[in-house]
């Protein structure tokens, strides 16, 4: 089902906690009348969770690159020696 832009905005405002009481009541009413919309709400929440995981994955990848750079670049040799020293003892 292709959800209308209005319904998407309403779902989003409600799911992100940005909806007014009236908007929340409106969504509740629509959900009672439309089982497919209930399904859409469920998948929209799953999608937000996936988007966050994607954002986290990107951030972790960037940190891995930074780690690699700090442990190989000549200008950070004292940092690297200091850290590796803790694990040699």
């Amino acid at each position, binding site marked *: 089902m*292709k*959800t209308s*832009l209005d319904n*998407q*905005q309403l779902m*989003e405002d409600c*799911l*992100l*906690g940005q909806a007014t009481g009236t908007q929340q009541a409106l969504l509740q009413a629509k959900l009672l009348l439309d089982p497919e919309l209930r399904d*859409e709400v*469920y*998948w*929209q*929440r*799953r*999608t*937000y*969770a*996936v*988007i*966050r*995981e*994607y*954002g*986290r*994955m*990107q*951030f*972790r990848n*960037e*940190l*891995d*690159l*930074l*780690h690699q750079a*700090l442990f190989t670049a000549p200008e*950070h040799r004292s*940092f690297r020696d*200091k*850290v*590796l020293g*803790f*694990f040699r*003892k």
Partner: protein
Amino acid sequence: MTKTMEVLYLRIFPAVARYVAKRGGTLEEAKDVFHDALLVYHEKTLDRPPILQLDEGAYIFGVARHLWIKRYVENQRYASLDKLIAGLDGDSGMDWADDPQSGEPAPATQRILRVLQTAGQRCMQLLTSFYYEKLDMQELARRFGFSGTRSATVQKFKCLEKVRQVVKEKSLHYEDFVG
């Protein structure tokens, strides 16, 4: 990656590494908990910039230490990051992204992420910029070259719809496969 992260890395990682090494941990374990602590800090600053007034070094070190104890002393290596940090500072975190299917096996989500990395990169960049980095619509329009906030909003919802279809199809396919 911002310059700030590099500064924080150089300043705080040695303390985390020393803490982990003293307790018999490895460099890889120190890196693992430190990266997640930076991620937690990063998300906090995206949500509420005033946290910057806190001592960021103490905060990041504290989260890393907490994660190391949970993962490597209490042996909760496979617990999700959200579970491990729940209630850490009296904040449940990003409620908007609470997964309604949090008991789902991780491989399904990993599989979806791999598909989206190859098939929907531009949409995912747009969606993470808005939902994860919390850019407002004006910044979003500027970054992605839209003529205005209206067209950025329309495109954002088109992407959301497209990604939602992928999430649904791949989740259902996975459930069929493992069920």
